[in-house]
């Protein structure tokens, strides 16, 4: 169990975010819980690439033969962190528009969307 400790934390954060989305009563709260859901993937990726005793993969001050952690998963995480914010901005623009048309921020009361 202690061997896989960060993987369990990633699953816990994922389920917390999902729980927040399910019982949310304000649309902005839903978007923030989506952020938390996405951050669980960062914990998972970080845990996959880590090596005990490894250094950071920046060779500005260490020589290139030193044992490092995995740089590929870090490259995946780097762009993801910045792009997530822009997608959150798009979702919040939709929330703002829904508020302006429907005068409410509760997802249960958005009646005009029912088809």
């Amino acid at each position, binding site marked *: 169990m202690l061997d896989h400790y960060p993987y369990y934390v990633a699953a816990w954060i994922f389920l917390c975010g999902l729980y927040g989305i399910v019982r949310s009563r*304000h649309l902005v709260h839903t*978007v*923030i819980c989506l952020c938390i859901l996405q951050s669980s993937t960062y914990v998972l990726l970080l845990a996959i690439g*880590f090596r005990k005793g490894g250094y950071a993969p920046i060779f500005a001050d260490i020589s290139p033969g030193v044992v490092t*952690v995995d740089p590929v998963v870090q490259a995946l*995480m*780097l762009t993801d962190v*910045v792009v997530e914010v822009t997608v959150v901005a798009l979702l*919040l623009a939709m929330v703002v528009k829904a508020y302006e048309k429907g005068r409410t921020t509760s997802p249960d009361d958005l009646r005009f969307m029912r088809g």
Partner: protein
Amino acid sequence: MMILGSGLLALIAVSAFVIVRTDDVTNQIIALSFYGLLFALLFFIFQAPDVSLSQITVGAIALPLMVMLAITRMKHRAELNSRQEKKP
């Protein structure tokens, strides 16, 4: 170093639960900033400085900024609507 990492992971798990249980949106932004800072520290401890720099700039500047802009705009629109309803 491993003890620090495990303690930080436990703190992140607790923070995630606190954020989803906070109901007021403005309080949630502050908690989200703190959560982003914890993540920046976690990335730094697990030897990922590039991602840590990204997370600091995004989690402290951009993400709370976006949410606060949305809330400000909604409050502004609510004020305008209430003023229009008061007039006639």
